[in-house]
């Protein structure tokens, strides 16, 4: 039992993981990330950018005017 564990631990340290296992991880990671990307997006981000664009335009113009 102990011998098996030691061998397994050594194998894990020394050998790269099974390509099939890596492939499975890659696919799971993509699926996980895709679910995050597709999750409903709160409106506040789009609203924030719209507000920034609206607010900053006159401000910058005023600064430019002040600088002459």
């Amino acid at each position, binding site marked *: 039992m102990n011998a098996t564990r030691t061998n*397994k631990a050594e*194998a*894990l340290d020394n050998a*790269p*993981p*099974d390509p*099939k*296992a*890596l*492939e*499975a*991880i*890659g*696919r*799971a*990671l*993509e*699926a*996980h*990330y895709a*679910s*995050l*990307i*597709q*999750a409903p*997006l*709160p409106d*506040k*981000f*789009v609203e*924030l*950018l719209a507000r*920034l*664009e609206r607010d*900053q*335009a006159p*401000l*910058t113009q005023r600064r430019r005017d002040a600088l002459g």
Partner: protein
Amino acid sequence: MPSASFKDELLAEIRNLRAFAISLSGSVSLADDLVQESLLRAWSNSEKFQPGTSLRAWLFTILRNIYYSNYRKRAREVQDSDGFYARRLTVPGDQESHLDLEDFRQAMTKLPVEQREVLTLIGASGLSYEEAAVVCQVGIGTIKSRLSRARAKLVELLELDDTADSPVERKVQRVG
């Protein structure tokens, strides 16, 4: 002031930015605060962005810096009360693969954040090794070693390494 096209480019990156933030912090509410703050900072520093380079990588760098300087401590506190993020964001899917995706998500949360972020950047966000190195402010060698440690750890956590009774075949099918 930032151009209208810069705003559109930011809009196009919000989902990716948020996905990275959730992966990093493990919390949807923290992630949303992080995205909000990152967008503000990106907007007011738009002149520092170099056209022709990756806007995604630039935004990720901003978000990551904010996370490590202001949010990392909070993340631990919030995670418990916020509930595991996957539950709040689960999209309808077939039940069989959903179960295994849960296993995968649980395993991801057990990785050190330095490994989790590299795995996410390279394996999911589509960044190159070079871009990931810039985002994480380390060398490419460090990126590569974190990536291989992250993968090895996931193999171990998901017991994909146990070839004694060939569960790899079984699990690969389940995860796929």
